[in-house]
């Protein structure tokens, strides 16, 4: 089970998002909060490491990492493909 709080903890390790990580709502756009392309790559790497997964290429889109809710769903789909 992936919780929003798990994801917020990872966001807190991201240089750009760290100062605001706790105030980001589940559906807020991370890109509006200043996440840039490199930031999103770092975020993907941190998520892969944390959950022991690899995102397939078709998941590597802006939409999959646009918000905490989107990330939760992306991670859950990769963790439990049959449930999705």
């Amino acid at each position: 089970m992936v919780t929003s709080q798990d994801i917020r903890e990872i966001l807190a390790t991201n240089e750009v998002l760290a100062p605001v990580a706790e105030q980001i709502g589940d559906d807020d756009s991370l890109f509006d909060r200043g996440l840039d392309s490199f930031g999103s790559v770092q975020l993907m790497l941190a998520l892969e490491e944390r959950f022991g997964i690899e995102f397939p290429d078709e998941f590597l889109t802006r939409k999959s990492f646009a918000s905490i809710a989107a990330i939760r769903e992306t991670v859950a789909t990769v963790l439990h493909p049959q449930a999705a």
Partner: protein
Amino acid sequence: MSTLAQRAQRAATIAALHADAVDRDGRFPLEAVTALKAERLLGLQIPSQLGGEGAGLREIADLCCTLGQACSSAAMVFAMHHIKVASLVAHGLDSAWHCHLMERIAQEQLLVASSTTEAGIGGDLRTSFCAVETTGGVFALGKDASVISYGTQADLILATARRHPEAAGSDQVLVALFADQVSLERKSVWDTLGMRGTCSDGFRLEARDIPVEQILPKPFAEIAAQSMLASSHLLWSSVWFGIANSAVDRARTFVQAEARRQPGQVPPTALRLAEVSNALQAMRAAIVSALRRYEDAQGDVDTIGSIGFSVIMNNLKTTASEMAVDIVQRALSIVGLAGYKNGTPFSLGRPLRDVLSAPLMIGNDRILANTAKLLLVQKGGGQLMSA
């Protein structure tokens, strides 16, 4: 009614006529741009319901190549204009103000310029120092715009800036500013090796009391990712292909003239011509396949926003810019002194000087560094026909 190719050819003929003066004097290709307007080629991409012709990037790319063979500066002006228009078409249709702007561009054939580069930031498109300062329904913007091609000739400038004075450097918007709404104080003069006619001077840009409707509603992050990066790399590459193509044309004419002088023998330079034609074909293939990828992905935000797509477009830019320089240099080595001299039918000085801007226009190392980051998560694989 003439075909698009005929209209482009007429404009290119005029561009070619003035190409030497444009280069020598480092002046704006006014005759060529006037011809582009007369042929109504500045509104091509705008949807027909807004008075344009709804042309796709593939058609624009073809025109960039045609013009690139005539006058690189005029071609680059045309390309840069259409890169901006591509962003308006992709992201402005939800905004009444921007729809009206597109109608005006098509109707009045307005020329659109770009201000992304900023003093102290250089070619990092996704970072701004300057910020939009809003009070009520209007905003002010001051920008140290170190390069704006045809800044004083354009009817409209699209400029990047931070969303507000407290926003992060990458939290940017794209604002549209009419020439009569901005003051441009010239800070540097574009006296360069090549691409001299783009008149890419540096300015202090100041705008005041601009209605907030002129800010594109979409975040610039999305505009860059979904239209601007791809259209820049595709259209720039098409201009460079036009330059490379015309250099190879000169080399071919040269070799064929040699062959006619010595019937029954293959001139030694023919081997080098075979090599360069090989390189030209590879360059064309790289551009055409990326253009197809772009067209196939139209309307598919997920694909266009994906890491794989960004890698393809970045690779196109670095590859095409290096190949173009290489091809022009090879053409020069075939033609020899007749190409090195100015004022011969085989002169290659200008194409060489112009094309040397290609690897610098958003530095290739900057783009490679960006791709390197993306490759940290891309998984690869794929098929010959689909990857």
